[in-house]
């Protein structure tokens, strides 16, 4: 028993024995996999044409520049090809996808004003309760639009702006939005960034003023209820000089037998000496193509921390990028990916060092079972002017059966000598010795394997707020059911 995660499993076992309980309770899959009819919802025609994009823009009352931006993005989308690497997305046919589904409600600032079925959805997902107990503000998106947005008074009084994106486009921060919107992730980045530019809808805008430290996180939750539809929310966060924010993003959807797509975009601006933690638990349904793009720009002395759990989706392409543009800027990425039956999850991170004395750390875990495919993909790029920079990459993969697949594809490019770059990767299975050890102490084999996997995932779960760590462990436990 050499590895830390095997030792962690033993610790968990010890804790379990102390409490008389071996694990947190099972969760019911119906927490995520339930759906409602689209009663009185507006749904645009499926497909992607200039007319559809124009109508979407008109329906949303976009400013003129935004309509022009959408149409330019559509032209770029039509021009760009699919990548020649990564999972196959040949079964994703945009001509069958509705890019805009609007619930029959306006955005509300009070849960009691949200339509009952939508409110029930978020109640089941635990969002209002989380808001009451541990969040500084909440945004809840249902299909293409936000249905609820609220921020605590004491937070708003500090000058923190947390609002839906559409309101921000016309409000006092309109110029700030125009200055930052899709400047970090441009439509030219890849085909699905262009798609996002054309049909984005919903999402949040956050501005944390200079020196403000939020003690509680803000959370946006994205729920895609509609069948054969896409969700394209845009999240723009600006953390000003010396400020501090923890932002949590959650997402889920019920499962359908047709493809859904999520092509959101997250742009994070971390100013001088500011700190931003961006946590995500992604549990999309297993018919979802998750083609999300996330990028952070970090100024001098600033820090971006990504904590990412990828459990859902049929196919995922997800590699949050940190652009370290100021001296001593720092980035950390801690992630776990769990690929089960029918899933092909291609995840990882990109670290771009563009200034001296910058540093980055990537720590990832991936688990494959039941025929799932998990690929860890990363890039560490150290520019010529980034002397004194340090980068460390550690990725571990766990194979739970021989029907599954796990690949590790880490790239490093270094353009100067004054650097310290380290990389390590391991791939393997649960050791029989560890399972035997746990079983010899009265734990069933299934429990033992589940505990070892939880121990393996512990470096990620310990970075999450407690309730999300519990959710993640539940998801792991659920996925581990019946693996023997």
């Amino acid at each position: 028993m050499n590895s830390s995660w095997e030792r962690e499993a033993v610790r968990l076992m010890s804790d379990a024995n102390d409490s008389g309980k071996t694990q947190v309770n099972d969760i019911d899959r119906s927490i995520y996999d339930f759906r409602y009819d689209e009663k009185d919802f507006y749904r645009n025609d499926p497909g992607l044409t200039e007319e559809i994009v124009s109508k979407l823009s008109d329906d949303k009352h976009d400013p003129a520049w935004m309509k022009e931006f959408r149409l330019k993005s559509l032209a770029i989308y039509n021009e760009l090809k699919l990548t020649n690497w990564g999972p196959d997305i040949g079964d994703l046919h945009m001509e069958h996808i509705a890019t805009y589904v609007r619930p029959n409600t306006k955005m509300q600032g009070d849960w009691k004003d949200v339509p009952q079925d939508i409110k029930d959805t978020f109640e089941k997902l635990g969002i209002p309760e989380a808001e009451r107990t541990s969040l500084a503000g909440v945004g809840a998106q249902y299909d293409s639009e936000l249905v609820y947005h609220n921020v605590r008074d004491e937070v708003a009084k500090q000058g923190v702006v947390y609002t839906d994106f559409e309101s921000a486009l016309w409000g006092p921060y309109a110029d700030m939005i125009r200055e930052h919107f899709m400047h970090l992730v441009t439509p030219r980045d890849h085909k699905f960034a262009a798609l996002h530019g054309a049909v984005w809808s919903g999402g949040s805008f956050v501005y944390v003023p200079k020196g403000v430290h939020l003690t509680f996180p803000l959370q946006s939750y994205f729920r895609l209820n509609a069948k054969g539809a896409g969700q394209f929310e845009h999240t723009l966060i600006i953390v000003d000089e010396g400020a501090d924010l923890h932002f949590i993003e959650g997402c889920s959807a019920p499962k359908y037998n047709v493809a859904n797509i999520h092509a959101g975009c997250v742009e994070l601006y971390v100013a001088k000496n500011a700190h931003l933690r961006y946590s995500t638990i992604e549990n999309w349904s297993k018919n979802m193509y998750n083609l999300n793009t996330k990028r952070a720009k970090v100024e001098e002395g600033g820090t971006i921390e990504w904590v990412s759990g990828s459990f859902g989706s049929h196919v995922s392409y997800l590699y949050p990028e940190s652009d370290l543009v100021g001296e001593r800027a720092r980035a950390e990425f801690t992630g776990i990916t769990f690929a089960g039956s029918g899933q092909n999850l291609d995840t990882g991170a990109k670290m771009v060092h563009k200034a001296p004395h910058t540093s980055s750390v990537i720590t990832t875990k991936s688990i494959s079972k039941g025929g799932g495919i998990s690929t860890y993909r990363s890039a560490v790029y150290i520019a010529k002017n980034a002397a004194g920079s340090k980068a460390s990459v550690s990725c571990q993969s766990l194979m739970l059966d021989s029907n599954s697949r796990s690949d590790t594809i880490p790239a490093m490019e270094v353009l100067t000598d004054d650097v310290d770059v380290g990389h390590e990767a391991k791939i393997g299975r649960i050791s029989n010795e560890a399972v035997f050890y746990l079983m010899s102490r009265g734990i069933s084999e299934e429990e033992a394997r589940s505990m070892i996997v939880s121990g393996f995932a512990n470096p990620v779960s310990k970075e999450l707020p407690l309730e999300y760590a519990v959710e993640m462990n539940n998801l792991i436990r659920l996925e581990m059911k019946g693996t023997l």
Partner: protein
Amino acid sequence: MGIDTTINNIPALTWNWLKINNAPFSYSAAMNAAGSAVKGTVPAGVSYTADADAEADAYRGIETGAGKNTDSIFETTAGHTALIKAEKNVHVSAPVRIDFTQDDRSSTVSAQIIRAEEGSSITVILVYTSGKRASGFQAVRTICSAGKNAYIHLVKVQLLGSSFTQIDDTGTVCEEGGRVEVTQIILGGKETYAGVAAALPSYQSSFKSDTAYLCLNGQKLDMNYVVRHTGRKTDSKMSVKGTLRDTTAKTYRGTIDFKKGCAGATGNEQEETLLLSPTVVNKSIPLILCDEEDVAGEHGATIGRLGEDTLFYMQSRGISKKSAEQIMARAKVTSAASLIPDESVVTLILTYLDKAFTYE
């Protein structure tokens, strides 16, 4: 003949903007087939055939590191493929040495097949040299086939002139219990494309490679190493160590590919790169592809300049920074060179190294 293609293609593609998926390669001058004559006498127990076209057919299709896109180059060698064979159960103690002394402005292609029959062992050393400032092109393809419980040690030493371009392409395959080791020293040339592909289709077959390089004064080195584990309880180890100084560029692609059914397989690759100038370009991509549960794969890489602790230790003993760097760069080469069972070749390497690694 001319060629305009990509070589050293990586088995699993990644972002194109990194320009690491392959190496673009073009060459338009005429190429001439060159023989592979053994230096000195052929050791007892070894059969040598200079033109082994008939036998060569049996080895076609073996994957090589530079890849199929170089096949058209090696078609030039028709009628000139050498076969070096160790007879069954013969342990050849003396290495077989083949020297390639390139003329200035020469352009040659050569190919060798090394076959170790069941229970045999053999070491083959290929040494490429030319005048210090000679220019030209050289392509070499070497196929190693280790029979049951046989052992092949292939040594390749590249000491070409400062304007040479070289493609050094290798493919290996092992039968049950067979083992191939490749020791590669790359010090010369202007542009070097080194590719090694190792197939381990049989039970308990194994592969080991030790590569050392030094890139100075505008040299470019592009490497692609691939090990395919198909057989049960197969094992691979790859080590790549080297130094970049001045305006030089190095790309290392290393892949351990665990195929379904290779239960009990283990693979390990390690890379160490010492960077000595702010104008170097270093690219690395160590891959593990895994389609089998019961395996253990690891890779590690360290990239950077001489550690402050090491430097402080050496300087406290009166060694200058430049000398310390030279000592460490030399050590990376000598650790691989120490695996070569021919003192004269080791001396050749160290002499070349000492002449090359001098400071202004």
